[in-house]
């Protein structure tokens, strides 16, 4: 019986996380549009429902009912596959993210994480590194110049920044002495790691923004040069999947920053899950703010920042942390 109960709980957790993620993604779009509107002294969407609160549903219905076109010379299978890679990769990362303290249900301990892998951090990296394929294959399969250039740019950018992303987390692993995300949260019982690893935090944040291809690193889809970059040729729900992927990725980014640097679900007074949400949203809002503030980088600036600044600094940071731990 225990086995069945465990299975039911697992399914329940999966369902809650999935629905939560999708809902949050939809409302993040609204939040972004509203907030950006305010930053640019305009209103943003305000017609559908009170304050435009029904806007996400309107968008979803629009996406679902639009015609799904495939360019004539496109590589059909890969063209259809690419958006799914992006969306599923982003969703799968949440499998190892702990979003609350362990709670007891009917006398059974239920950890608030779908699965606690002992190589959780590497699992995150593995999935993140697969996100490249959605972009690159999508760009290639469209058989269009803009898409191809967008795809190439995306691939180059993502493999470059994956390096600094990985290196920035090595000190965290050294401090927590574990790859498991649950253990990393546990290691921050006394203080969040942002206090001892501010450099890591900054590098991680910058690289993660570059990985999600948001402004100021949105060269793969720079609209004034490339149309919409790698997803120029996509329409309907396939475009919707790219779109969904982007906003789920925003949450992933928020969740990872929360887990690695902000102490995870820890916080006073409020329940852990609420704290977790607050922190994730705070990071997301920060990202939107960055988007409203900073201009896009030039391509060479992007590469120089990654290879000549972030990677060396991250390496030095590792050495410094190592020396600190040794002494």
């Amino acid at each position: 019986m225990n086995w069945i109960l465990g299975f039911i709980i697992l399914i329940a957790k999966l369902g809650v996380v999935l629905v939560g993620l999708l809902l949050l993604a939809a409302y993040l779009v609204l939040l972004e549009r509203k907030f950006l509107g305010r930053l640019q002294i305009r209103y943003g969407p305000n017609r559908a429902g009170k304050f435009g609160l029904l806007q996400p549903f309107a968008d979803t219905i629009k996406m679902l009912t639009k015609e799904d076109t495939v360019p004539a010379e496109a590589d059909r299978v890969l063209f259809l596959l690419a958006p799914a890679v992006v969306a599923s990769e982003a969703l799968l990362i949440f499998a190892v993210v702990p979003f609350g303290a362990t709670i007891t249900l009917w006398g059974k301990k239920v950890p608030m994480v779908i699965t606690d892998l002992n190589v959780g951090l590497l699992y995150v990296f593995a999935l993140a590194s697969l996100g490249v394929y959605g972009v690159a294959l999508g760009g290639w399969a469209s058989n269009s110049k803009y898409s191809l250039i967008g795809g190439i740019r995306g691939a180059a950018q993502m493999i470059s920044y994956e390096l600094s992303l990985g290196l920035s987390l090595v000190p965290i692993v050294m401090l927590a002495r574990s790859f498991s995300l649950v253990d990393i949260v546990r290691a921050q019982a006394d203080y969040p790691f942002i206090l001892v690893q501010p450099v890591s935090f900054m590098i991680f944040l910058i690289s993660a923004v570059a990985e999600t291809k948001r402004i100021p690193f949105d060269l793969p889809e720079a609209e004034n040069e490339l149309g919409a970059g790698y997803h120029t040729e996509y329409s309907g729900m396939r475009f919707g999947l790219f779109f969904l992927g982007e906003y789920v990725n925003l949450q992933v980014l928020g969740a990872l920053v929360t887990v690695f640097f902000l102490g995870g679900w820890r916080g006073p007074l409020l329940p852990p899950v609420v704290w977790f949400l607050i922190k994730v949203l705070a990071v997301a809002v920060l990202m939107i703010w960055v988007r409203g503030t900073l201009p896009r980088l030039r391509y060479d600036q992007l590469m120089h920042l990654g290879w000549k600044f972030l990677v060396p600094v991250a390496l030095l940071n590792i050495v410094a942390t190592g020396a600190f731990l040794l002494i």
Partner: protein
Amino acid sequence: MTIYAAIFYVLAGVILVATGMAITRRNLVHSIVYLIISFFGSAMLYYLFGAPLLAALEIIIYAGAIMVLFLFIIMMLRVDPSSLRRPDLKQWLPASALGLIYVAIAILVVTQDPGSRTMLEMALTKPRVFGEFLFQKYWLPIEIVSFLLLIALVGALYLGKAFARDAREREEAEK
């Protein structure tokens, strides 16, 4: 047959089919995609064989870095699939002869070797144990591999710039 054995055979099938497709596709991008599937299967096998760390690294390095690099190069060079000839008989013949000899040897190995019939037991390597073992015992190879990566870096940098340098030198020579 245990459930693990079933998983193994399914994965083995996936790997073999994907690799087989990969090496016969004319379109290089399709080859790469099949190969990614194959490496995914290998990563799962590593996990099954109790090496979760290696499974994760297999995906990060093989599927996530090496194959992306291939894809990137193929996209950048704009290799036209129609320009690639199908390998003709002259090339297939020695290759398949080699392959047949090899398979014969493999069958020989499998059937003649009493030791290879031992069943593999389940085990799990914790990343920490693995790391400690690695850094204690294989200290020297790690240093060597760091040199190797340094050399590869120097070489890739040099070769990346070599073409522009050649063109410049040729221009100077023409003057």
